[in-house]
């Protein structure tokens, strides 16, 4: 039990677990010393509590003060007068939400209310350590210092072993530090895994799959002005992370593996997820299965190219070796050399679709950005990535998007391909009764693209979130708009790291599943 010699900052006067605990501040304390979110201790009769300040305020006899202000008393005399009786005419209060309660050696979620007139004291270093534990450089790693009224600087640790048991989330507006925290957590998980493997080589390993939109995991973390401030986690632990990028130039310059994708691996569901980003109409989406049938009939595995193929596209494809290989394959498949003619053939076949033909003609040009991505008609990188993730001898994976950082469709294509293959391989292993050698944590930035209200049911990440927990695949959902995530997804997250959010829906979503959410909204 921690000894308490701290001065009382205030007294509990009313409240409840559900409505918050009200405290009146001692007269010699200054209300400005009590910031929202600060941690304090409450000394009950049987338990001591850790609590967070969720509101602070003042009450005064405003009629009295008002009549002083409008009186003919000289300002100086008035100020002196009001100051002399400020404690008699005003009171300062705090509202607290109870975080935890402890008696002897057991700390648990608070389920009792502290007694009337209990003392509020500053959360000392020992207090905070008692409730949160101490860094042990294995499972528990420091993650930051809580706010306290008098700014006691005590780092509190996160228990990595518990964190990775289930999916977790990192939410906050742009620029609040989500990626910075993501790097820290990824680092702790990697180190925990390495130490654990050292202690027990047969233990299940942990692999991270990080979708690194802005190359801040694989290269450098940057401040809001774009200046590098620290090396990314995969850059520091380059032996533990295999870094991929679809950006050829970045791969050459920084020694990353080039990530290639084969459009033949895309399914109609992938196209359904990706196509809206290009701005295609609902009619087009409604005909996708019909288009797929016709295109597969004409182009076989290369069916996706059928959406955009014509002589213009062909002339662009001619410029690269992969492009020429694709054109050759298509020519072999169709027996035709003229790509406008092939396009004509396809559209003729589409006539049977009625309105679908019109939609095909008007919408497919929107998909032409596909030729700008690092495609191949040979072996893609997807299998290599997935094999690394599921093998005890493999490495964690970071996919850095380099110059494609704003190309949401490419991100979605890569993410969907990996997620589907990963799911297939793990289910296959499971069905065969093979050992699941790794636990996989997928760091998914801009997660609403895959786990949004409209995409969750179609995206392979949705399936992973729903079905793969027991097979050892967890998500680290990172997003600045949690309100756009499907509520099922948010309710599956057991630990949330929440930075500043201002939108009401985002705040609501980020707090799903948290008991005291009414008070944390502030």
């Amino acid at each position, binding site marked *: 039990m921690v000894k308490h010699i701290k001065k009382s900052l205030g007294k509990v006067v009313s409240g409840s677990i559900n409505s918050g605990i009200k405290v009146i501040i001692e007269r010699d304390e200054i209300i400005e010393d009590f910031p929202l979110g600060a941690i304090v201790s409450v000394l009950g009769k049987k338990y001591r509590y850790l609590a967070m300040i969720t509101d602070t305020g003042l009450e005064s006899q405003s009629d009295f003060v008002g*009549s002083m202000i409008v009186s003919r008393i000289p300002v100086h*005399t008035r100020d002196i007068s009001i100051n*002399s009786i400020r404690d008699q005419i005003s009171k300062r209060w705090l509202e607290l939400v109870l975080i935890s309660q402890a008696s002897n050696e057991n700390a648990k979620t608070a389920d009792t209310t502290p007694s009337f007139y209990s003392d509020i004291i500053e959360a000392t270093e020992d207090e905070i350590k008692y409730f949160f534990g101490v860094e042990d450089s294995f499972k528990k790693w420091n993650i930051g210092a809580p706010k306290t009224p008098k700014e006691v600087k005590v780092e509190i640790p996160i228990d990595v072993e518990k964190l990775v048991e289930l999916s977790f989330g990192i939410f906050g507006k742009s620029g609040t530090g989500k990626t910075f925290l993501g790097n820290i957590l990824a680092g702790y998980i990697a180190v925990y895994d390495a130490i654990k493997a050292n202690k027990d080589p047969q233990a299940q390993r942990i692999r991270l799959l990080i979708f690194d939109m802005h190359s801040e995991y694989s290269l450098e973390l940057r401040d809001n002005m774009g200046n590098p401030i620290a090396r990314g986690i995969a850059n520091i632990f380059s032996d533990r992370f295999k870094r991929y990028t679809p950006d050829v130039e970045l791969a050459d310059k920084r020694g990353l593996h080039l990530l290639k994708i084969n459009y033949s691996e895309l399914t109609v569901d992938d196209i359904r997820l990706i196509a809206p980003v290009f701005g295609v109409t609902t009619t087009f989406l409604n005909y996708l299965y019909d288009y797929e049938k016709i295109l597969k009939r004409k182009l076989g595995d290369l069916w996706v190219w059928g959406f955009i193929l014509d002589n213009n596209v062909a002339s662009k494809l001619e410029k690269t070796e992969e492009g020429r290989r694709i054109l050759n394959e298509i020519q072999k498949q169709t027996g035709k050399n003229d790509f406008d003619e092939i396009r004509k053939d396809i559209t003729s076949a589409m006539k049977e679709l009625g309105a679908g033909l019109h939609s095909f003609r008007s919408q497919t040009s929107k998909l032409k950005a596909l030729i700008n991505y690092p495609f191949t008609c040979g072996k893609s990188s997807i299998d290599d990535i997935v094999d690394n993730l599921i093998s005890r001898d493999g490495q964690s994976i970071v996919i850095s998007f380099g110059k494609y950082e704003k190309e949401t469709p490419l991100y979605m294509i890569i993410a969907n391909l990996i997620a589907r293959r990963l799911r297939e391989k793990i289910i296959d292993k499971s069905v065969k009764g093979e050992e699941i050698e790794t636990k996989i944590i997928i760091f998914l930035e801009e997660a609403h693209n895959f786990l949004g209200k409209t995409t969750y049911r179609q995206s392979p990440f949705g399936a992973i979130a729903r079905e793969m927990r027991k097979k050892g695949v967890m998500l680290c959902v990172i997003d600045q708009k949690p309100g756009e995530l499907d509520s099922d997804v948010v309710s599956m997250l057991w630990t949330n790291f929440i930075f500043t959010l201002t939108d009401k829906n985002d705040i609501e979503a980020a707090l799903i599943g948290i008991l005291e959410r009414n008070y944390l909204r502030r």
Partner: protein
Amino acid sequence: MSSWGELLSEKRRAIGEVASVEGGKIEIFVYPEFYPRVHIGSVLIVDSEETKPIGLALKLAHSARHGQMVPLHRTRSEISDMYPDIEKYHRFVSTMAYTSHLRGDEIIHVRSSMPKLHDLVFLVDSKSLLVRFFKPKDIWDFSFMRYYVAEGASYLELREFFYHHREFFSDFLSEKDEIVSRVVYALIKSGIRDIAGFLEDINEVLGW
């Protein structure tokens, strides 16, 4: 007059004597020759055997001692010439609100034992003794006002109290802030809510 002992040592300085005691009010029979020197708000001390009750004059009354007053239709000087001992037949009374006491040489703004009838009463009007009354322990202390208000002093009595002592307070202009803050504190403890109106009065009578 610089000490309490000196003030109380000469019975000829007594301005009256205790006529009755009821709760926190002490009625004083004021000797006629001292009647003009006693004002609302005057500080009075009773020379009792042990602790010495101190308070503030709350009311002044003047009536005929026996029967009804008979109209004379004379000027004051004509009356004095015609009836030099007329005031022996008058009754001069002051009601003192019991607010404080003197124990040894220390003023405490709390009531203590009650005086007995005929205990002599003295007027505290020397600056040095008033300082000891208003600044016991060398700190301005107006907590005696709580008893004064409780015994019936209204805004007007308080206004007169400050008016009566205006010259005394004018000597402490440099301590004005401290005086104001202590007075306001005492008033709020007395249950007075219209502090603003009251402060306007103080400023007016003290010319602050």
